């Protein structure tokens, strides 16, 4: 029974649109009657799951009223994105971006990375978005990353680690920026991979202070391994294992986060550490 309730709650949570419904009255105020009518028509989808026929049809009808109603294309695209149908998703989100790049470029960039690991495409969209607006480009659709950090991860994936470090460092220096839940972890891993161990330790300590997770202790352990500090290496791995078993690890309901480690990685490393004893 408890599980049924949980599934129901999660189903509701994941049926919430990724992007909030525009205020229809704003269109009327602006004198755009057609978009106002399309927007009101789109409200018919309320109460329907985004994978449902009714949801798709409500937006089709809205598009029938005003084919430039960008929000409808984006909302239609979500179910295709989540089902891995990259072709239909791209076709729909491209229409939304073409009609209103300011509203959708950042989201398309993020989704290209999150769902399809299209690093080049994600960078292109995020950078075009940055050029387009004179305000902070904001966060990923799921709220986990600032888009600058997401862009840095994409640069890293393409082998440009120095560039990735520079982007993250710059972002973290900004006075009004609150570090994201994985920002220091990604920075620490970059330092570790480039052999800057003291800086890596400092980043992982900051990650621990903000959001302690198994990955953080795992990579911290790898730094101590490189530095030949066996005691701390093993200690970190054991802590990492405990955190993982306690479900304190990187998480994304749709896919695996970048720099994620799995229990097997931690246990393999612990085994190596114990063999060397």
């Amino acid at each position: 029974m408890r599980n049924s309730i949980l599934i129901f709650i999660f189903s509701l949570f994941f049926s919430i649109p990724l992007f909030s419904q525009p205020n229809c009255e704003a269109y009327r105020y602006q004198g755009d009657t057609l978009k106002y009518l399309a927007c009101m028509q789109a409200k018919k989808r309320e109460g329907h799951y985004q994978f449902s026929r009714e949801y798709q049809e409500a937006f089709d009808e809205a598009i029938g009223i005003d084919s430039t109603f960008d929000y409808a294309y984006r909302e239609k695209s979500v179910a295709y994105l989540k089902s891995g149908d990259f072709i239909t998703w791209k076709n729909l989100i491209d229409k939304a971006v073409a009609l209103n790049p300011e509203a959708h470029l950042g989201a398309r960039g993020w989704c290209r990375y999150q769902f399809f690991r299209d690093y080049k495409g994600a960078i292109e969209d995020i950078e075009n978005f940055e050029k387009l607006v004179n305000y902070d480009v904001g966060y990923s659709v799921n709220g986990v990353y600032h888009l600058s950090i997401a862009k840095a991860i994409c640069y890293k994936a393409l082998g440009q680690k120095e560039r990735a470090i520079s982007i993250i460092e710059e972002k973290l220096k900004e006075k009004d920026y609150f570090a994201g839940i994985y920002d220091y972890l990604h920075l620490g891993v970059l330092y570790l991979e480039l052999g800057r161990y003291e800086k890596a330790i400092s980043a992982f300590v900051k990650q621990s202070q903000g959001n302690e997770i198994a990955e953080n202790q795992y990579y911290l352990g790898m730094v101590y391994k490189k530095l030949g500090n066996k005691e701390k290496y093993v200690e970190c791995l054991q802590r990492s294992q405990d955190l993982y078993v306690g479900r304190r690890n990187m998480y994304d309901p749709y896919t695996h986060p970048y720099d994620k480690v799995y229990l097997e990685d931690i246990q393999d490393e612990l085994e190596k550490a114990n063999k060397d004893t």
Partner: protein
Amino acid sequence: MNKIIFPFIVIFLFGCQKSKDESSQQKSKYLRWVGDSKFDPEVDDPDFKACNGEKVAQYFNFSMGLQYEGEKRALEKVFREKYNPLSREGESGLIRIRFVVNCKGKTGRFRLLQMDNDFQEKSFNPLITDQLLQITKGLTGWKRLPDTDNARDYYQYLIFKMEKGEIKEILP
């Protein structure tokens, strides 16, 4: 008297609902849910049965991410060991294999979707797609979700990021 009439009322109401659904489907260009894979006798295993009819959830509805015995590493290991790369220019892009995991953890109704790096539909060499399909069909570690007596059927997919015939990443 009421005891006799009540079942007929229930049957009548459900009957109306069913025919309403069927009628909506006939009029609509959409299936009941986006991405639904109906049984296709030409390609699908007739012995594979979904436990709850057409009420198939999506893997992320359970908020647990990909659920495979041994996690993602176990799955990657299978492909690393069994997939023979066909190193050829042009064999790059994404290949998605989507399927149903039933309430017993068995899989069926496999569907293939392929694109190039510009999100345009393409066909990879069958020596690549046939291998990926066969390996995916042979995976036995899919978990029942939720892991209770009320396990559901759910859609799962694997996306293979291919570069010149090699698997670079597996998603989700």
